[in-house]
């Protein structure tokens, strides 16, 4: 199958093809390895090897459970769910508390946060990035995760609901509480609203 054609296929089509021929799973992995690795690094304090272990386990579990994929879901929601569960398992095993998380904030992410939290537009973006990183470090895990989904991964409520396996109302409450905690931490700093 020509490379170009495979890249144009949807996730669902690639899942169907993988079930017929294993090699196609490679394309799915390549499609998701970078976003998932960023997600793991943003959410955890794992070193690169640990993060890659989580990613590997995620891919292996995804492959073995391909027949369990519910086609009414987005494949991305499903694989993020597996990754989320794998991350929680790894936390439990290592018993580490996430700190000093990875931060690669592009301008779009920063813009989104500035708009959502009504932050003074005159502020130096590098300074703001540093503050955001510091605040994200001290947020509760569940709140940090939904903020990462919202601002960094661009997930909507439905996708977050499918990933976290929580009703949409609960996701909305989580986001609202996460924003409240984030805003409180932001107030404690010298950032102007």
């Amino acid at each position, binding site marked *: 199958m020509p490379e170009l054609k495979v890249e144009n296929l949807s996730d669902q089509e690639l899942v169907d093809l993988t079930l017929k021929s294993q090699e196609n799973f490679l394309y799915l992995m390549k499609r998701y390895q970078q976003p998932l690795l960023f997600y793991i690094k943003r959410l955890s304090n794992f070193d690169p090897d640990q993060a890659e272990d989580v990613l590997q386990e995620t891919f292996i579990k995804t492959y073995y459970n391909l*027949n369990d994929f519910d086609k009414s879901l987005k494949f991305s929601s499903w694989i993020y769910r597996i990754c989320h569960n794998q991350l929680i398992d790894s936390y439990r095993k290592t018993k580490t508390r996430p700190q000093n998380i990875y931060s690669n904030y592009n301008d779009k992410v920063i813009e989104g946060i500035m708009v959502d939290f009504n932050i003074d537009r005159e502020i130096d973006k590098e300074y703001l990035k540093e503050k955001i990183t510091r605040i994200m470090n001290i947020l509760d895990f569940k709140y940090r995760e939904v903020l990462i989904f919202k601002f960094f991964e661009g997930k909507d409520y439905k996708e977050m609901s499918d990933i976290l396996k929580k009703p949409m109302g609960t996701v909305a409450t989580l986001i609202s509480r996460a924003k409240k905690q984030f805003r409180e931490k932001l107030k404690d700093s010298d950032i102007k609203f």
Partner: protein
Amino acid sequence: MSEQNISEKVFEQIKEKKPKPRWHFLIKDYVIWFLGLISLLLGSLALAVVFYTLINNDWDIYREISNSFLKFIIITLPYFWFTFLALFILAAYYNFKNTKKGYKFPFYKVILLNIFFSLIFGFLFYSLGLAHKVEDSFNRDFPLYNEMFNQRKRIWGQVDRGLMAAFVVAVDDKQIVVEDVDGHNWQILKADNFRCPPLPIVEGDALRILGKKIDSQSFEADCILPLRGMRWMRPPLPDERKIMPMRIIR
């Protein structure tokens, strides 16, 4: 390790291996739904027993049992079956939440839906007569339940307080002999101030007898009423029941 290598490495690990078959997940789904359904039905059965217990409660003479209606309710509620019901509602909730789409529904919706179906099935089971069979079976087969959780047995076993539940073992023109909830036989004497409507009594009848204890074998009744519920007290098989000449207490 480069990102390229992660995919390659995983691919090496899964090479020649197949995903788990679809039936594996289907069976898991069916088992979860089956357990959820069983929990719902068992919860409904518990609710049917709650209906049975409440319908057959001593509402007509609650003043004889307690001086306050609220206290009467508190002492006669079937806590055992309410606990049973709550446990199975939670079990059904847990199973439903673990179905593929169960997580989409908030806690209160799942619980309300569960209660709704429990009410429907509970009424159905009650109408089919399953509730009294379950209650009888628990009383006959589980002495601990009978001793600890049967509030009515406790209430109607207070012979010293003038409350006796019993079934008639012998009846003739002169006397009634009954066996109480603890298996003791009593001769029932009619009090001069008998205050209840006359009741046809035959052998095997289950009765609520109000009055006072005379001695270790005699009880003076000032009111005799049919006993609702508590069928476990009676001889189990109807065909064992002898039809004796009826005696009317007036």
